[in-house]
């Protein structure tokens, strides 16, 4: 057994240049967010309202920043682990599918610091140029849409390729139920988006007329969420149909993690886009839900990492 263990080589892979650049970008965005959180002087109105000094304010936001950075790092870790596994089996059909999937999760992971940095920058610029808030909000919304769209598209594409390798034994009635569910969900989401409180500007906090909001943001989001959720379902199907008891057992963590990440991102996005609908609620439970969802996303990425590690083990022994 010792001889086997010695001979069992854990193939250490060097990181490819694109992966190194990705990690560097991730690091820069994270450092950027930390600097944007602590360097600018907080608004005097905010300090006065809560009777805080600048130092007290910074101590207050420190745990939030640490919490957020920890969530992002779990996303980075999980997405890199699955990318590493995909690279190990890159010449196989499932390796190519997993590679596309892993790039989707890397995009989703980097979306978190990008969104936070943009929001922080937007807040900073708006303080000095209040008139810029409208344009910045619109730009910010479209950037979020593009990043999420790219991520969900890649995830959906990778998942379909993977599922096709094991045969798709999806029942027709479950497909119809799925479509019906999404139609109902889309109708309700569209209603909540356009049904803004009267106290907000006529165009809502998105600063867009309703028709443009629906066509350029709501419908694309719904489409990409559909693609992402279908991707999660395809992974589940792949796990159900593929051969190999040990392989399926390792895949369980990956498929659970994928589902948690996708659902977590979607629900977080829904809550932030209908935030004015929730404004009449007590802020505390809303914040708890959103932070809870971030923990779910982090847990999902960690499960993805565990699953990728177990699958990798099958390739190393």
């Amino acid at each position, binding site marked *: *057994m010792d001889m*086997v*263990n010695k*001979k*069992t*080589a854990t193939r250490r892979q060097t990181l490819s240049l694109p992966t190194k650049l990705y990690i560097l970008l991730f690091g820069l965005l994270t450092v950027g967010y930390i600097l944007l959180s602590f360097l600018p002087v907080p608004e005097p109105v905010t300090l006065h309202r809560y009777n805080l000094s600048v130092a007290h304010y910074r101590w207050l936001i420190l745990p939030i920043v640490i919490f957020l950075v920890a969530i992002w790092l779990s996303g980075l870790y999980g997405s890199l682990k699955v990318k590493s596994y995909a690279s190990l*089996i890159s010449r*196989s*059909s*499932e390796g190519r599918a997993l590679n596309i999937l892993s790039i989707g999760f890397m995009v989703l992971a980097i979306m978190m610091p990008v969104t936070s940095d943009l929001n922080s920058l937007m807040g900073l610029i708006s303080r000095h140029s209040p008139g810029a808030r409208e344009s910045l909000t619109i730009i910010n919304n479209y950037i979020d849409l593009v990043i999420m769209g790219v991520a969900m598209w890649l995830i959906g594409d990778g998942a379909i390729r993977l599922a096709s*390798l094991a045969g798709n034994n999806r029942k027709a009635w479950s497909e119809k139920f799925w479509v019906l569910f999404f139609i109902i969900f889309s109708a309700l989401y569209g209603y909540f988006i356009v049904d803004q409180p009267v106290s907000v500007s006529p165009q809502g906090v998105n600063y867009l007329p309703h028709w443009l909001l629906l066509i350029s943001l709501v419908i694309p989001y719904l489409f990409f969420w559909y693609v992402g959720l279908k991707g999660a379902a395809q992974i589940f199907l792949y796990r159900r149909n*593929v*051969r*190999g*008891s*040990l*392989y*399926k057992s390792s895949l369980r963590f990956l498929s659970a993690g994928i589902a948690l990440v996708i659902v977590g991102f979607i629900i977080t996005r829904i809550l932030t886009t209908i935030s004015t609908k929730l404004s009449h609620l007590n802020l505390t439970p809303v914040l708890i839900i959103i932070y809870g969802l971030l923990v779910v996303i982090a847990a999902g990425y960690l499960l993805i990492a565990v699953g990728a590690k177990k*699958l990798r*083990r*099958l*390739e190393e*022994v």
Partner: protein
Amino acid sequence: MALGTVREQLVEVSRDYLGPAAERFVERQISTHLKKKPDNLTARDVSKLVDWLKLSLALLTKDIEIIDEYTERLELIAAGRPKEALSGQWLK
């Protein structure tokens, strides 16, 4: 049922446990432990390969039932009884 070469039979049995990773698993044992290319596997290598396959699978799972079942099926192939090893009786 076309049974294929011994290597293909070993891969087919391994697929019930390792799925898509089975072929790579078997080929890795051949190249790492027998120091041969998979296509150069001979009848004399089979029993040694079976020993390595059993040992390596034991590193991947603590489930004694799976290890014992895999071992039994590999030994059937080594004994020239591939039909029994590949029959559906093993699929639970």
